[in-house]
């Protein structure tokens, strides 16, 4: 009896259940619209004070991009300035970025791993795991998956010569794996990409990246010749460590993307 008279919930929830949700919601919506509009107005004032779009005298174009463009090829050996920048000048930043991706995969794994007895939700998901085979999807996938995989490899391997690189190529590879898994079911995909393979590939790629770039930075900072040939700029095997680092990053990204798909679609990790 006492429990029934007792109000439920905390302060504002209480107020809302008593005085009706609509009033609170209207006030909240009005306040948030006003906040967003005033925020947009402040930002638009800022935009009107910016230098014109596409102007060569833009203050963002200072000595930093100038040095990257003028000396990038001699320093890194990569024709793609952005690749040379993120995998040579600022390689540890990119390493931390790959680690953030790895940490996110680990966090999703911890949250979605199902151990213990299956709940109703889990068994419903398991029924959906391997849906009825869809002929159109399977035929299209069998045509497209090899081409997409090849294109992903091309983008990764030419990362230092043309637009692309480890992150974009890895996302393409991951997309091909997801297409395969959604057409043929994750059970069949598990035959050649087991969870352990994914896990070990990600860890190995990160280890390789850390050791290779750590060595290069240590040697460079102490004036030791690292013994990494730069090659002729423009050749496929050139630019020192950059193609290898691109491959490491690409494999790690492909595995993380596919791991996200598996975990969200089946919630299992065995």
């Amino acid at each position, binding site marked *: 009896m006492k*429990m029934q008279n007792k109000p*439920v*919930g*905390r302060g504002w*929830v209480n107020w*809302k*259940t008593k005085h009706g*949700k609509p009033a609170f919601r209207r006030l909240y*919506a009005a306040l*948030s*619209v006003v906040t*967003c*509009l005033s*925020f*947009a107005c402040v*930002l*638009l004032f800022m*935009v*009107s*004070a*910016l230098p*014109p*779009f*596409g*102007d*060569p005298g*833009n203050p*963002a*174009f200072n000595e*930093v*991009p*100038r040095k*990257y*463009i*003028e000396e*990038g*090829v001699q320093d890194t050996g990569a*024709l*793609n*300035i*952005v690749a040379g*920048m*993120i995998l040579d000048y600022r390689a540890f930043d*990119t390493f931390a*970025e790959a680690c*953030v*991706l790895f940490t*996110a*995969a680990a*966090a*999703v794994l911890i*949250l*979605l791993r199902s151990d213990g007895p299956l709940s109703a*939700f889990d068994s419903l998901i398991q029924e959906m795991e391997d849906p009825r085979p869809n002929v159109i999807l399977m035929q299209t996938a069998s045509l497209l998956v090899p081409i997409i995989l090849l294109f992903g490899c091309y983008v990764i391997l030419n990362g230092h010569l043309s*637009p692309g690189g480890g*992150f974009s190529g890895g996302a393409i590879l991951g997309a091909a794996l997801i297409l395969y898994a959604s057409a043929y079911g994750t059970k069949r995909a598990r035959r050649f990409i087991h969870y352990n393979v994914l896990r070990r590939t990600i860890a190995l790629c990160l280890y390789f990246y850390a050791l290779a770039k750590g060595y290069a930075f240590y040697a460079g900072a102490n004036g030791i010749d690292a013994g990494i040939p730069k090659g002729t700029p423009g050749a496929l095997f050139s630019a020192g460590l950059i193609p290898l680092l691109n491959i490491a990053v690409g494999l790690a990204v492909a595995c993380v993307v596919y791991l*996200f798909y598996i*975990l*969200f679609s089946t*919630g299992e990790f065995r």
Partner: protein
Amino acid sequence: MGVRLLTNYYETASVILFSIGFATLFLHRNLIKKIIGLNIAETAVYLYFVAKGYITGRAAPIIAGGIQEADAYVNPVPTGLILTGIVISVSVTAFALALIVKIYKQYETLDLDEIMILAGKEEEG
């Protein structure tokens, strides 16, 4: 002032897009729609950065034909920064969606208000 808003149309569009994402984050009670709003706002920031790096009439920063003058290419720095941003936003989105899956398993709803009421009841009882 108004003229600059029209010349800087990429930046103007990104500010409007950012406000749309921000408003979505505030106004929707569905958790997944909140994540969509967050992603729209992030995309607006990428558009802003890449627009700031662009210089009219110059090529993408990939050395072609041995031309290595700084005045031939656009600014490569914002592109490199945004590459980092995209990866972080993917990680944050995946983590948030995993949390939402857990919340849905616990409360069987995605409505934030209902979740708050249910959580309040749980705390009381």
